[in-house]
């Protein structure tokens, strides 16, 4: 079971995710994130405080969205990552390509004027 809620925060969109991200639910997450990017909302923060577990299918959804957002001048940044999810991100090497923040507010604030002007480097 996965619950996804979208909260606009100024020029940033926070996607609050609750539940487990696995092969059964990853497509829903990917669809929700891609809908935001397709709608021009490319500065995204994923609030993962309610995600206890992600499988490699969840990692693929995050990776696809990061690439898509950066191609359009934005980024997907992760906030409030739980210990188990952090461990999987670390093991997969994702912490070297994704920006992680302890708090949602910090992740939202990280999208400063420079980001609005230039966007992230594409991967």
């Amino acid at each position, binding site marked *: 079971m996965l619950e996804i809620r979208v909260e606009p925060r100024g020029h940033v969109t926070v996607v609050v995710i609750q539940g487990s991200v696995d092969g059964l639910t990853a497509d829903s997450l990917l669809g929700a994130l891609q809908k935001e990017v397709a709608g021009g909302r490319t500065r995204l923060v994923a609030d993962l405080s309610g995600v206890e577990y992600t499988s490699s299918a969840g990692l693929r959804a995050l990776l696809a969205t990061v690439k898509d957002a950066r191609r359009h001048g934005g980024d997907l940044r992760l906030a409030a990552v739980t210990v188990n999810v952090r461990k*999987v991100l670390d093991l997969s090497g994702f912490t070297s390509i994704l920006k992680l923040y302890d708090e949602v507010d910090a992740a939202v604030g990280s999208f400063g004027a420079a980001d609005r002007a230039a966007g992230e480097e594409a991967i």
Partner: protein
Amino acid sequence: MSADIVLELPNDLRAIERAVEYLLARCSEAGFDCDRVGLKLRVGVTEALSNAMLYGNARDPRKRVLVEATVAAESVTVRVTDEGHGFDPDSLPDPTLPGNLSRPGGRGIYLIRTLMDRVEFNERGNSITMVLHREPSGAEARSWPQ
């Protein structure tokens, strides 16, 4: 493998969570550290079952996935077998190498190999056996988040 738990699952991703929760409950009953085993076994078995259903059995709803598990005093062993033709596990690239980081696939088996204490495939490549020890190794005990 003489298993004390045998589950025959339909080739349906919805069956994974219940099977994993059942195995975790059996490990908990046997006194395994739920925090450590909770993540490692959950990731390992979930990835193995997903691979079996999506790639091994090619999403065919007529096929089944066999789970055999033994919860012993020192370790838990889980074998996942599908009805597919198998694959060569050594052909998968390391997804953490710089050139592979942005590639979408190949992380499931990598996670299994990293998290479990021992991983073996049969010759055909349609059956994976994963072993997780009750006690962490010295290096893991120092690095594992508490």
